């Protein structure tokens, strides 16, 4: 602050007199970005300490969506665990299911048949595209690109239609089961996915035309929320946030599961380590996922079983998608009710008692759209899980938020939280 005519009465350059009795206090403001907020990607609470517009410190407070999923799985059978676990990270339900089922299958010492593995990969990759579309839609909405919201959800509806035709539900499918998947693709399913593959690359180009060289998008995202590779690794960050810092770490490449080592795809990295680099990584990951889905479709041309043959493990029912969702097929109901008493008893025991899993513990990581989703599953030999712990990527990635937000502006807080892509269901479980 300068004063006209130079400082008077002994005042210094800021215009404050040494003898002035007026005190100028610098205070920081503590602002609560409460759990109910349109732009925090869910019920996340941030305590921001502000000096003007600059953020001095940021404390994320989570737990507003804590559902007790881990405790609840200990009171249900192994198969029922799938329905609980799938609702944790609700934007990528297939990944939760695949991780859990892979862990239980590892404990059992069985492997799902090849066609089931291809279907798992197919649905996981389509889920990755759907999850990135929601990220793109909501990030665009939060940063002001409202049309991105409508485009993202428009494409997502196409994917959800395919999910609904194949599994009966749009979200939280409980499709991947211990020993395989629930049902094979419906008639015409492959053509529908093929049509989707034809349409989608053009749409991704559309998003890029809207955003990638957009000066407003660049200004809001470029250089915002930097997180170097060392900091990211120390904080346990995985997924697109880590790959945007240049570290090529992807569970599908490092510890392949479900046959990922046989698919051709690139692990996408960029060097910017800021929000813009994370945006580029996710856009490119959508393209790579489309590549994998195409390869899956080729492998699905030969028929095969989708559930393991072991009668002590396989889900007994034959299900089909009817007008009101998934239900037992008429042929199966006739079989157990009228034809075979043993089949009825077996069905009853499998549904009520479930699978018995030998004692032990395993840790199985999968690559969810947000990073390394790990399942630590402990069995004590019974038909209920003893402990299911989900190492959720959003839980760990959100720890890095204060590091990225400190020193930035308040408006950048929104951009940074959006680029972390947290799903509070996974954070709080």
């Amino acid at each position, binding site marked *: 602050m300068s004063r006209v005519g130079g400082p008077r009465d002994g005042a210094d350059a800021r215009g404050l007199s040494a003898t002035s009795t007026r005190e100028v206090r610098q205070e920081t403001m503590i602002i609560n970005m409460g759990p109910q907020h349109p732009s925090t990607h869910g019920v996340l609470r941030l305590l921001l300490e502000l000096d003007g517009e600059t953020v001095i410190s940021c404390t994320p407070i989570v737990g507003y*969506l804590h559902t007790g999923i881990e405790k609840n799985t200990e009171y249900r059978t192994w198969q029922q665990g799938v329905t609980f676990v799938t609702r944790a990270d609700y934007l990528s339900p297939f990944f939760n299911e695949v991780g859990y089922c892979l862990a239980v299958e590892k404990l059992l010492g069985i492997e799902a048949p090849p066609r089931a593995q291809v279907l798992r990969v197919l649905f996981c990759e389509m889920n990755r595209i759907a999850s990135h579309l929601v990220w793109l839609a909501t990030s665009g909405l939060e940063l002001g690109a409202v049309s991105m919201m409508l485009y993202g959800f428009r494409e997502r509806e196409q994917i959800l239609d395919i999910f609904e035709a194949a599994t009966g539900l749009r979200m*939280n499918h409980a499709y991947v089961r211990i020993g395989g998947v629930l049902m094979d693709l419906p008639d015409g399913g492959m053509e529908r996915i093929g049509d989707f593959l034809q349409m989608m690359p053009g749409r991704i180009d559309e998003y890029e035309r809207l955003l990638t060289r957009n000066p407003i998008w660049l200004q809001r995202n470029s250089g915002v929320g930097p997180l170097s590779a060392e900091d990211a690794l120390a904080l346990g960050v995985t997924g697109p946030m880590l790959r945007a810092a240049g570290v090529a770490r992807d569970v599908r490449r490092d510890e392949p599961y479900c046959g990922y080592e046989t698919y051709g795809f690139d692990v996408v990295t960029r060097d910017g380590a800021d929000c813009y680099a994370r945006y580029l990584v996710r856009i490119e990951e959508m393209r790579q996922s489309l590549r994998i889905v195409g390869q899956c479709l080729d492998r699905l041309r030969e028929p095969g079983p989708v559930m393991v043959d072991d009668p002590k493990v396989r889900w007994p029912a034959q299900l089909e998608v009817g007008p009101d969702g998934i239900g037992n097929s008429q042929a199966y109901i006739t079989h157990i009710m009228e034809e075979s008493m043993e089949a009825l008893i077996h069905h009853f025991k499998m549904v009520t008692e479930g699978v018995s899993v030998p004692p032990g513990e395993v840790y199985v990581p999968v690559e969810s759209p947000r990073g390394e989703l790990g399942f630590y599953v402990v069995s004590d030999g019974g038909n209920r899980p003893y402990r299911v712990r989900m190492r959720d990527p959003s839980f760990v990635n959100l720890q890095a938020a204060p590091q990225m937000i400190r020193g930035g502006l308040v408006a950048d807080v929104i951009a940074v939280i959006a680029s972390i892509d947290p799903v509070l269901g996974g954070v709080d479980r």
Partner: protein
Amino acid sequence: MPVERVEGFRSGRTAEQGEEEFERGLLLTTIDRAVGWARKQSMWPVTFGLACCAIEMMATGAGDYDLSRWGMEVFRASPRQADLMIVAGRVSQKMAPVLRTIYDQMPEPKWVISMGVCASAGGMFTNYAVVQGVDTIVPVDIYVPGCPPKPEMLMYGILRLHEQVRTEGSFK
């Protein structure tokens, strides 16, 4: 011991009964009809999406299942500007006081739709962490079951609420 549940203060009269009274012209005056019509025409929801149901609520507001045809695509962030709260998702014990605070901050007249089974009755999470039904905290007008309910189901619930609002009269 059964859980005490708070009645939605406009429940107890179905849309059909309201219509019947409307036809008989006994209960609603012209003012009532005008006020009811105005209230339901653009009911602005407050952003209260919590979990998976929130994504379906966003999908309902997006292009394919457009809430804008009823003037409802503007989800207000501030509860002081909203008159409808769609509780979408599981309400944890930590979130319950926040839910009540947001409800109290909304000006009258206000309505609550409990979307999904988790908000209506605790859903599949019958455990220590989830409030077993938001009607233990706020009075609910419409319950929309589903896990998550399809956008069409939510729209049906919203339209039933519109009918209720249109035919209820302006005094409470």
